[in-house]
């Protein structure tokens, strides 16, 4: 059955057809036959409803949804109009004394040239710790959702997206080392310039995904052994909690700490920020790659 582009677009829009179909060949044949269905911009009511109600719902739903969006735009624009002008140095958000303090004494107190890194990994480090735990919790939930099912696919290799394409493979071969290297650079320079654990970890995770897509999980498993995923994340989070708990305890009680700000601008400076950046980067990279592996049903 050859269908036109418009038909396929409409089928995709109503959820009967995915773009992934072109990549993953669905072999089990359990998919229900495609039904002729009119594509509309509305949900259909479920249960016993009369034809009139159904038609009314079809008309009213998109109209009311559009109206709701328009009312929201109008309300929010009214608020935006009252805001201080864009780029205003005297607006309440930009002239609070906390921000002045962060900029004026951040360099001497944290040793980080990048003030944002000083804020998120020193002044507000517990916030970032909670953030890493949110990511970890999400990874656990995805683990539970995708691994706890009873019907495992017979042949996992059928479901994996392996791009068997020469150009893609060669490009990935030349590009992936540089992506991994750049990710490491961004993590290690988080306290000296733009970057940090989250962005660098995302870069490394993306590089690993590229390797896995091009050469299969066996090659990417050689770079990072996926079985050690849980161990890496656990050790990183534990190190983060212990180190930051120690430094907060000492800082709050005025005790002597072994972590000094050091000379700003050196790579081994800024006290705890560099190790914490590495820990966060490991968590993020492992979680990104773990998500990819789980969603494509490779071995974890």
């Amino acid at each position, binding site marked *: 059955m050859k269908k036109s582009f418009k038909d396929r677009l409409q089928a995709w*829009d*109503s*959820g*009967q057809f*995915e773009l992934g179909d072109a990549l993953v060949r669905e072999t089990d044949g359990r998919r*229900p036959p495609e039904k002729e269905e009119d594509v509309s*911009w*509305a*949900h*259909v009511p*479920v*249960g016993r409803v009369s034809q009139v109600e159904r038609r009314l719902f079809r008309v009213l739903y*998109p109209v009311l*949804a*559009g109206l*709701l*969006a328009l009312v*929201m735009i109008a309300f*929010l624009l009214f608020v*935006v*109009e*009252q*805001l201080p002008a*864009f*780029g*205003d*140095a005297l607006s309440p*958000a*930009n002239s609070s004394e906390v*921000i*002045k303090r*962060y*900029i*004026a*004494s*951040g*360099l*001497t107190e944290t040793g980080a040239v*990048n*003030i*944002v890194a000083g*804020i*998120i990994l020193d002044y507000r480090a517990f916030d970032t710790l909670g*953030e*890493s735990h*949110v*990511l970890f919790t*999400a*990874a656990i*939930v*995805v683990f539970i*959702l*995708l691994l706890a*099912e009873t019907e495992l696919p017979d042949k996992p290799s059928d479901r994996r997206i392996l791009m068997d394409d020469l150009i893609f493979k060669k490009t990935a071969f030349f590009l992936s080392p540089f992506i991994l290297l750049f990710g490491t650079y961004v993590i290690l320079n988080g306290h000296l*310039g733009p970057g940090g654990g*989250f962005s660098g970890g995302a870069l490394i995770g993306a590089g690993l995904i590229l390797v896995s897509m091009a050469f299969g999980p066996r090659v990417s498993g050689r770079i990072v052994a996926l079985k050690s995923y849980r161990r890496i994340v656990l050790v990183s989070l534990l190190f983060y909690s212990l180190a930051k708990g120690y430094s907060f305890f000492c800082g709050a009680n005025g005790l002597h700490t072994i972590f000094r700000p050091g000379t700003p601008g050196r790579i081994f400076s800024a006290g705890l920020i560099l190790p914490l950046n590495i820990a966060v980067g490991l968590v*993020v990279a492992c979680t990104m790659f773990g*998500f990819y592996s*789980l*969603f494509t049903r490779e071995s974890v």
Partner: protein
Amino acid sequence: MLTALWNNRIEVVAVILFAVGFSTLLLHRNLLKKVIGLNIMDTAAYLFLTSLGYIRDRLSPIITDGATDPEAYVNPLPAGLVLTGIVVSVSVTAVMLGLTLRLYKRYHTLNLDEIYRMTHEEQEAER
């Protein structure tokens, strides 16, 4: 009114993006597109936050030449807040996609109405 809106045009774009994401969430039946709509709404919130922290004619908050004058740099706080927001939205997206995958494996469709219909029929059959 219009000049005030023009002065805050980045925030206006953020508001419009938010509404685009919201209507995507409401009007599409494909579960994946609902996830995309929610992500557009997240992006709008980040754009709004970062635009609030911008100060004209100032440097990004990375200390250059040892100058620690607060008048020299933009507001560094929204950048930290947006970083937190991005991580949370990635986590939420992953959980949503995991749930979507489970639904797809059970009902073999991404159409939310079809899924509703099938669950309704299952409940009717149980009764």
